Structure formats: C-alpha cells, structure tokens
C-alpha cells in the first residue's frame, strides 16, 4: 500500500537554530500516528512543513503523492493548527460555510459537521463569544470537511473536556477505519496510548524512537514494579523472605527487570501462605516517554 505521508532525512533550521534533524517517518492510510515530544521538540514545525506553510532545508517530503502545499496535497489534507483562531465577528455556522465553499463541498453540511463536534446549539453565535474549547471544536469540525485522506492535528485535544476528548478519539477511529491517515501531536500520553497505532517520540528535533507502545516498552526495558500484600500477621515473615523489597504500609514493594519478572513471580507464589495478593505494575507510559525523551535533547 502506498504511504499517505513520507518524510525522509528532513532537516529544518530557523536562522541557524536547528529545529528538525534527519527526520524520517511515514504514515500509511488508515494509520493513526501520535507525535510526542517536549516543548520545542519540533512537532509543530514538522507539521507546518508537511502542510507546505514553511519550507525545509534538506530531505524530501511527499504528501499524498505530491509536494507539500501543492494543489493535490491541499485538496486531500486537513489541518488543525496548534492555537486555532477564527474571525470573531463570524458565527460558527458562517465560518464553516466559508470553509466548505473553499473546499467545494456542499454548504448544507455545515450544521451536521458542527453537530458532530457538539456545537449545534452555539452554531448561530459569534465565534468571539465562544470558550476556548468551543473554538477548538470549530477547528475539529473544519478538519472533518470533505473526507480528508490525511489529517494533521496539532494538539487536537488541548482545551477539550474529558468527555469531548473521548468523543474526539471516537471520531478519529471512524476516520481511520475509512482509510484516512492521521498524524497528531499531544502532550496527553494516556489518551494517545490507547487511541493510536504508533508513537513517534521527537526530542530536540530528532526522532529518538517510533513504534507501537509494546515495542517501545520492550526497547526501553524499564523495571517492572511488584506489590506483594501479606496475609494478616505474616507481615514480618514476608519482609524477611523478600529482602530486596521495601516494606511500606500495605505490603512489600519491589522492582525487577523485565526478563526476571516471571522468575520473581514464581518465587513469590512459592512463599505460599504468607502472600494474599500480588499486583504487577508495568512501567508507566510517562516513564517510557521520559526514558526516550531524555536520552537526547534536554
């Protein structure tokens, strides 16, 4: 299958300050890719290059088989900028109709699109009176116009309440199921973990790693945490049996390497009566993210 988006050895420098270095990345139709990285990592810069808003110094970018910013690429690409803004004097409905006309889509669908992002009631009010989250939703609504084949969304869930976030990811699932490619950036790790196919971690303008979460977890090889709860009265015995752990209020806490996990569990279950429960806590997404993000960059 041909890729919707291909970046290879992309490099961008802002007046001598490097923003992206040797970035290679591709996104297939139907794939949801999350771009993660610290503030200033180059996420927004990469998106602007993909959209043809700014140029790049070297490397190649291919968007829907064309050059970034070419007529064909623009037809099929939807964008949600980082701090999306609209003219405050227009109503949500007027703004949507304008965008629909620019894309040559039927104007009658404006209300449906606004309803899909929960703005039906506010559609006839001026955008100047909207809250931040409501403006963000207008931004999402315009990105849904005309079945885009590639969606580039810069922090799409910033300013959205938890319910709207969930609704938003459901919209994305629907789009991806229809074959749209999605590249989104986010700082909210837990939501992208469950809702995207692949994570790309950018640090200081360099892609430090990319892959599905399970791959990243394996690569990072961070220790697993075990929490062992003793039976009533077996507290001290358990602490003595697991000297490498640390006793806290409710039980023994211990770390072990991924490879040792099964052996350690076997040993604990071998303690028999002393143990009432075991919790296995895999490394958190934050821990994996900081592991990669710190390696270079900051």
């Amino acid at each position: 299958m041909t890729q919707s988006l291909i970046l290879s050895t992309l490099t961008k420098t802002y007046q001598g300050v490097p923003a992206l270095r040797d970035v290679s990345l591709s996104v297939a139709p139907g794939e949801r890719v999350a771009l993660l990285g610290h503030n200033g990592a180059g996420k927004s810069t990469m998106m602007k290059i993909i959209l043809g808003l700014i140029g790049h110094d070297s490397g190649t970018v291919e968007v829907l088989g064309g050059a970034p910013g070419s007529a064909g690429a623009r037809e099929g690409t939807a964008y949600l900028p980082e701090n999306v803004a609209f003219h405050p004097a227009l109503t949500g409905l007027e703004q949507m109709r304008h965008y629909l006309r620019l894309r040559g889509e039927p104007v009658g669908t404006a209300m449906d699109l606004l309803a899909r992002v929960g703005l039906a009631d506010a559609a006839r009010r001026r955008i100047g009176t909207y809250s931040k989250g409501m403006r963000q939703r207008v931004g999402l609504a315009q990105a849904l116009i005309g079945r885009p084949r590639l969606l580039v969304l810069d922090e799409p869930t910033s300013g959205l309440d938890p319910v709207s976030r969930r609704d938003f990811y459901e919209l994305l699932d629907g789009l991806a199921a229809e074959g749209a490619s999605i590249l989104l950036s986010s700082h909210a790790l837990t939501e992208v973990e469950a809702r995207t196919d692949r994570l790309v971690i950018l640090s200081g303008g360099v892609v430090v790693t990319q892959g599905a979460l399970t791959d990243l977890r394996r690569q990072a090889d961070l220790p697993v945490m075990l929490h062992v709860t003793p039976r009533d009265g077996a507290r001290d015995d358990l602490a003595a049996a697991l000297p490498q752990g640390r006793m806290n209020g409710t039980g023994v806490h211990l770390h072990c390497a991924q490879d040792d996990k099964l052996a350690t569990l076997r040993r604990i279950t071998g303690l028999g009566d002393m143990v009432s429960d075991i919790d296995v806590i895999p490394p958190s997404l934050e821990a994996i993210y900081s592991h990669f993000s710190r390696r270079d960059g900051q």
Partner: protein
Amino acid sequence: MRRILATAATEFRISLRNRWVTVAVAMMAVFALVLSAAGSAPTGALGADRLSVTVASLTSLAVYLVPLVALLMSFDGVAGEVERGTLPLLLTYPVTRPEILIGKLLAHVAVLTLAVGAGYAIAAVAAVTVDARAAQGLPALWRLMWSSLLLGAVFLCLGYALSALSRRPAGAAGLAIGLWLGMIVLYDLGLLAAVVADGGGWFTTDLFPWLLLANPADAFRLFNLAASEATAAAAGIAGAANAIPAHHALISILLWPLLALAAAVVAFRKVTP
C-alpha cells in the same frame, strides 16, 4: 472563481459586522451633503449646469476621501489575519493567495460602491432639485462614479501590499497613513513647488504632465476635470495640466489597479505564516 466569491461574501459580511459599511456610507453621505449645501449659490454666471459643478467639487472631495476610506479598510487585510492567527489554517485550504486577495478586494470594492453611490446620489438629488438642466451632468456623474471605484481599488490593493509588508496591523496603519499623506497631499505640494521654482521651463512642460499621470489620484482628478465642462470650477494643479489629453489619464487609472494588485500579490507571497 467559486473560492474568490466565497472569500468576497465572507469579507463583506465581516465589513458589515465591523460597521465598516455604516461608517463609510455615513462619511461619504455627510460630506456630499455638506458640499451640496455649501455650493448652493446661483451658478448662472458659470454657464454650467448645477450637477456638472457638483461633480467638479465631488471630484476634489473624492481625491482625498476615497483613498482614505480604501486604506482604512485594507490595512488590516493581511496583517489582521497574521495577528489573529487565522492565516496558517486558511493557507492550507485549496485556495491560492491571489484568490484570497481578489476576494477581499471584491468585498471592499462593494463597500466602497455603497458608500460612494450613496454620497454621489445625495449630491445629485440636491443638484437636480434646484436646477432643471442638471440632467446634462449625469454622464459626468457616472464617469466620476466608476473612476472613483477604480481609484478606490488602487488604494485597497496598496493597502493590502503594505499590510503584507508590515505583518502587524499597527505598523500597517502607520504605513497606510504615510502613503496617503505622501501620494495625496505631499506629492501635489511637491509638484507645485517644483513648477513654481521651475518658472515655466523644461520641468513644467515636459516632465510635469507625466508626473501627474504617474500618480493615480492626480490621474483621477485630471480625467474627471478634463472631461467636465466645469473645469473652471476646479482649483489648483489641474489648471496647469489642461494640456494632458483625457485618454492618457484614463490609461493611468485603468493600469494602476492592476499594478497595485500585482504589488499586493508579490508582497503577500512573501508572508510566511
């Protein structure tokens, strides 16, 4: 074309909401009324009909007001989008930069049409009610109308160009005021001073007419006054340039909007969102 019209419709709506339409119409109407009231003395001595005289005074008024209103509407055209942060998203849509500018231009020319039309209509009605022969002046009024819109288009486009060059509304406003002062006020003063200093020499006979034609506001004035029977009512610089044929002035006022639009497109292309 569809995208140009969509842009124009939205921009016109924004002008309505911003009260630009109201302000521009009210401004032109008030000045036209004042002018009609001030010029209501008998004109028998001049031999021209009332409306032709009115057109001559409206021409002098339009030279100042139309560029001013046009610049006031356009200085925000690109810089405002940059400042609001609406430009990056707009530029990812399948619409080209010239299409965006032409759309804005159509909307703003429509606003100018309303304003200029209202003002001139008031003056015409005032003239016709006091002088039965005034209908003779209607062709002159019509000519004034469309040439005013061309003049307006020139300054709208120059306003977009300045807006794109400065990228900040405050800076663009300053540049627009400077442009208005330079092209409308100082240019003529400079020419007058040069003509006086030259004392009828090579500058006055050879260069001066071309310098008048090179400025769209002077070309506009020349075109309307040369064609009008009431040239006698016109003061100042136009009298010195009677030698210039009206069709030269016409070429200038037809070429200028295209040049200004090209300048605006070039400036807008340089804006990175």
